[in-house]
């Protein structure tokens, strides 16, 4: 794994970034279907789902519309949160959806039995600290880019081994997949 020296980007940076790269984030990644397949296959009933750095909410839309989820909380600190509120509005009758326009740093995660972190941990320096605070047994669904450089990435994973090296002391890996340059992981917090 390559650690980059840049600092994390703030909400203002992402607000600007979304403006010029909107279409990239509205396109559904194949790995979301893979995550949905894993969620279905494991047959786990999640009580409280936490989606961190949820972006515009397209993965959330896919999961909420496909699975019988009861409680879904999404954190997104950029203006994309406003879009997500509208996007998920039709599903508020079947699922208790909470969207919080703020950082998820330091939040109380004790009630969540499922955490979704898609394209998030490469952007922050406190990923290990965040995972460490989750309850043991928490289900984690993670996607990470492989070998992708960006001014928004604080680290670069060169391969799956890099990912395992970083997280295997705190996550019990149950599933490891990759589609193109995206790693897709299901694990349980140790």
């Amino acid at each position: 794994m390559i650690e980059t020296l840049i600092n994390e980007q703030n909400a203002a940076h992402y607000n600007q970034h979304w403006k010029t790269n909107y279409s990239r984030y509205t396109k559904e990644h194949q790995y979301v279907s893979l995550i949905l397949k894993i969620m279905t296959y494991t047959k786990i009933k999640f009580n409280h789902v936490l989606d961190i750095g949820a972006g515009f909410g397209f993965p959330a839309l896919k999961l909420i519309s496909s699975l019988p989820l009861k409680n879904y909380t999404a954190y997104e600190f950029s203006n994309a949160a406003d879009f997500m509120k509208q996007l998920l509005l039709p599903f508020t009758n079947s699922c208790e959806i909470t969207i919080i326009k703020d950082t998820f740093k330091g939040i109380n995660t004790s009630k969540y039995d499922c955490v979704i972190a898609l394209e998030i941990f490469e952007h922050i320096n406190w990923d290990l600290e965040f995972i460490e605070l989750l309850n043991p047994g928490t289900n984690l669904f993670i996607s990470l880019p492989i070998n992708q450089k960006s001014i928004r990435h604080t680290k670069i994973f060169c391969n799956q081994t890099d990912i395992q090296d970083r997280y295997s002391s705190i996550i019990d890996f149950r599933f490891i997949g990759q589609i193109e340059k995206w790693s897709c992981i299901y694990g349980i917090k140790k």
Partner: protein
Amino acid sequence: MSCILRQSLTNLELDALYRYAKNSNFILEVGTGISTQFLGKAAMESGGEMVTINITDTPLDLHFKGITYLMGYSICQDDMILRGHPQFTLSRYKNTPDESVAFGKIKIRPPCDLIRFACENRKLDFYFGDSGEYCGLAEWNIVKDLLAVDGWIALHDIYYPKSSKNFQVYDAIRKSDNWQIYLKTNTKAGLVIAKKIKEL
């Protein structure tokens, strides 16, 4: 379960894999290798889906567009044909990852059972088995029922004692009325491609 990313398939065998896999909706490969790009090309051209399973990480130069790469064991512990089982056959290759499982030194742990995961709620149209020395037969026990009628099975390493991988599977196919062999090569390792002509 698979341990190798090298394969001794000849160009003609690789071309045969591509030709027979064409027009398949769902291709599964166990043992990612050079064959992956040929099968992936067949999947892409026919608008199908391809999943490849390997026990270790796959180098980036073997990653191709549209293919789902799964990392882990193809089977689970209960599928494994261990030393002492009547069908157990010793491989001449030592220190392979699956040897430790076969001899009861370690147990298969997640990620595992990836064939069943990949094939959940759907039938296979093309299966290529080129995995670890001790698991070809165990994979066959799962895959033979998952393959659709008119689906294809391709197996590498069918000659014993060169390899213990698939010679028993080839033997089972050869003796069965449910399968029709379309291709068998006489290379050192050997490749067989057969069609499932009726439900088992």
